[in-house]
């Protein structure tokens, strides 16, 4: 019989395990004894007020910031203990979408995506650009966009192109930093849907930092709330919303939270009736 796509690793093992993470900038402590796990194939939404260190958490998992304490285990390896080459092997299995896209401004879109295919997968330029155009089409960009430069793109197109670049090497883990911030509601909803479709097809795990309540309801399997320098609660969104904490209550049961919840229940009942 056919093995599942990622047969070499046990499927119940978490892809990311953060234990006792400590991060500080000078005297300012951002994280203290923070624990978090990302399971295989799930979309984990990470929320928290401004300044609770969501992006810092993402950066310390990806390896852009060295934590002041604690361990980050990715795919069974502790990143800080690996030498450069092993580390680079692991990092190839990451796809990161930065908050403002961070597309290389001197390359056009297909070159942006082909770069890692040429450098890491050692594909010839022609094949790499062909695959890059498939990826661009996969995230819903028109074919003409392949030759455009990032500065001539709208915000939504930048996000899509950045997602295509994050997907270039078929990552096992996708890190998204506020992917829907700055998108119009239609574009944001389309992005949520795209993310779920791609996850179902490609089977990657997603670490999603967001403020967007609609994204949490539409796309996330579990939600982690960062508060008081640690992860306050991790669970399905309905259970998280019940947590007895002032910030969580304000967040999920404020006017916007209620609206998002209503929209979600309405759309899911619609989906059932259509089926």
């Amino acid at each position, binding site marked *: 019989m*056919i093995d599942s796509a990622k047969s070499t690793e046990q499927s119940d093992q978490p892809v990311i395990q953060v234990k006792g993470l400590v991060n500080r900038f000078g005297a300012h402590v951002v994280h203290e004894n923070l624990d978090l796990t990302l399971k295989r194939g799930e979309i984990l939404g990470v929320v928290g007020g401004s300044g609770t260190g969501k992006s810092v958490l993402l950066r310390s998992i990806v390896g852009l910031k060295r934590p002041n304490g604690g361990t980050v285990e990715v795919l069974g390896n502790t990143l800080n203990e690996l030498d450069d080459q092993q580390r680079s092997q692991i990092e190839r299995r990451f796809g990161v979408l930065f908050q403002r896209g961070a597309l290389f401004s001197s390359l056009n879109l297909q070159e942006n995506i082909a770069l890692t295919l040429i450098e890491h997968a050692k594909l010839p330029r022609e094949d790499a650009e*062909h*695959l890059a155009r498939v990826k661009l089409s*996969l995230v819903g960009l*028109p*074919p003409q966009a392949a030759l455009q430069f990032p500065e001539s793109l709208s915000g939504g197109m930048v996000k899509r192109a950045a997602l295509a670049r994050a*997907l270039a090497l078929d990552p096992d883990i996708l890190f998204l930093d506020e992917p829907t911030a700055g998108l119009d509601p239609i574009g944001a909803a389309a992005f949520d849907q795209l993310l779920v479709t791609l996850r*179902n097809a*490609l089977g990657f795990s997603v670490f999603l930092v967001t403020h967007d309540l609609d994204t949490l309801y539409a796309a996330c399997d579990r939600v982690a709330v960062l508060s008081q320098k640690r992860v306050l609660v991790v669970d399905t969104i309905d259970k998280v919303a019940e947590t007895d904490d002032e910030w969580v209550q304000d967040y999920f049961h404020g006017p916007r939270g209620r609206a998002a919840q209503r929209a979600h229940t309405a759309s899911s009942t619609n989906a059932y009736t259509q089926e």
Partner: protein
Amino acid sequence: MPSEWIARHDQTLALQGEWTLAHYRDIKSALTQSDVGQATHETVSLDAITRLDTAGAVLIIELIGVEKAISVTEWASELPKEQQALLIRIAEAMNAPLNVDKPSHSRINQALASIGQQMVGLWSQQRQLLAFIGLVIATLFHLALRPRRWRLTATVAHIQQSGLNAVPIVALLTFMVGAVVAFLGATVLQDFGATIYTIDLVAFSFLREFGVLLAAILLAGRTASAFTAQIGAMKSNEEIDALQAQGLDPIELLVLPRVMAMLISLPMLAFVGMLSGLAGGAMVTSLSLDISLTQFMATLQKDVSVMHFLVGLSKAPVFAFVIAVIGCLEGFKVSGSAQSVGEHTTSSVVQSIFMVILIDAVAALFFMEMGW
């Protein structure tokens, strides 16, 4: 034809093994070696595929065609759901036309077009520069009578950055060039037994030309680039637009303080350059030519009139204005990307050094004709 990835059993084409990005090139060459071609109408079995990712999916879809891939659920029910979904999703993406033709022209046409473009660019650049100079001067006159709107703090800050902080490098550089000129003079003039004229050589060259020219070229590299990068970063961050939207004049706020700071800094730096060039010359003449410092000073006083000093210094404000205006204008031309900031910074340094030397040459001609 059986290989690690493709095999043919009876009438069935069996794909097997890991169809992933890591094996992309091997699979592709295996496909071209075997005479499979397009297998749109053959029976294909995907059962033996152990791993599949987007790159592998693209290869499969190229082999079997988009329509067959979209209907994968009908003929490959053995395939896991995720891989079916992957194939369908990629096939949908590949259904759209993927290749866009780059507009291609013949090489001669391209060469001609690029020459034309550059000429038009050069022309419009000069027009822009003249227009910008006009704008700056108009704003300057407008504000000259309104001292309350002078940006003193900003101006002083820029004087510190572009003037005061540049004193050590200007002094060091002109000192060394002064020494070099003196050595050169000593070597050449020794043959004529006229080494005493080394003093005149150093004095004339530094008072009339080198003091101000070296200071101006240094500031063109140091300050014009800084102005372009500062204003360019503000431009790409939409800060210039924000100023305009709030009814504030970016010329008044950003350009004039910089221009004023340069107008004050460069003459002072030119003066520093002259003195330190003379000092360099004096050091060489006293150490290697046995001309004492007293004799150096006496000759300087006797032979060199103050006219030469004034001729040299009169060029400083012109250079200062040109450098500051080019630096600021290039900053305003920045559009969006980080690359654009780099391009315009380079362009501002090249242009301002070019303009400084051009003006200096014209001025030298003018002063010679006037007999000054």
